[in-house]
């Protein structure tokens, strides 16, 4: 398995207490975590701050991480805790709109439709946080339901139903769009 083969060097580096583990964890998790954090926080700047806090926390918890059954689940648990801490610190509720900074960008360089990104961002922002996180991991990080269930420690049915509810809501919100 690809995931297992990428976990092994991380576990080995953690077992050696080798700082190279930070780079390996970055390579393995940074993109997934950053997408997840942007979905949770709906802000690129906030996601950057929280990503840094997540990595610092990972380093401090590295001995436990080395013994964790599932690295993905442990790393994403840290990320979710940091998101919760962030909301607590900022006294911001997950549903409140943050100061606008774009966290979605056009996928193709030739598609310079800023308004599309803004509209999709606004539509995603109206989803509950739990649904939005799953939609983003599934659509943008190409994760399977099984992988998301493992990452977020949720049942497969919960992940699938949250995704379906999320898409149904997006369908209503984006009914004026033509693909």
């Amino acid at each position, binding site marked *: 398995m690809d995931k297992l083969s990428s976990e092994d060097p991380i576990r080995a580096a953690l077992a050696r207490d080798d700082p190279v583990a930070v780079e390996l964890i*970055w390579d393995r998790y940074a993109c997934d975590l950053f997408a997840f954090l942007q979905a949770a926080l709906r802000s*690129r700047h906030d996601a950057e701050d929280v*990503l840094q806090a997540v*990595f610092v926390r990972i380093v401090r918890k590295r001995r436990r991480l080395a013994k964790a059954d599932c690295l993905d689940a442990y790393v994403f648990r840290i990320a979710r805790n940091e998101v919760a801490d962030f909301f607590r610190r900022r006294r911001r509720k997950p549903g409140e709109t943050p100061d606008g900074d774009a966290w979605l960008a056009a*996928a193709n360089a030739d598609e310079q439709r800023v308004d599309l990104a803004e509209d999709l961002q606004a539509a995603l922002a109206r989803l509950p946080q739990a649904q939005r996180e799953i*939609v983003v991991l599934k*659509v943008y990080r190409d994760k399977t339901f099984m992988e998301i269930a493992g990452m977020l420690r949720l049942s497969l049915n919960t992940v699938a139903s949250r995704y379906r509810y999320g898409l149904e809501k997006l369908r209503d919100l984006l009914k004026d769009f033509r*693909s």
Partner: protein
Amino acid sequence: MSTPNEEYDRIERLLKRVRPQEPSAELEERVQCAAQEAWREDTAGIPWRIPILRLALSTAAAAVLVTLANLYGDRASYPRRAPVSAGTYVESCDLDIMGEIPVSFTRYAATTDTSALFNHLRAVRETLRETEENGLPQGPGLSDPRSHLPPRLHKGANA
């Protein structure tokens, strides 16, 4: 009319026209610097933390052990109730046999005032000697072929 799956595919295609920002090189550098710094701080903190932690843990374990030993030691040495049938009577009033205190009483005897015990034994010996000399029973207990053990032991054993 499109099916739900077609609708979902359409939404997914639409969503894929945009994507979340990737972490920039500056962000990678910043995060890795912070993480490496945290690693160094954490590693530097370990050498003095581990012995202190071990000392604290061993102190706590020793305190728990001493407390438990005191607690259960007191309970173990507390006088137990001896079975009456085993300790109350002996078959003969022979002094040699009377000197052999039943095992069930030895634990109690260790916690009894020894001078009082000797005094009592001396009194019993006197009584027996008088009985042998006079040939008459001096007390109700000696009319029975089985003699009673000292009343103090008897009382203490039933306490």
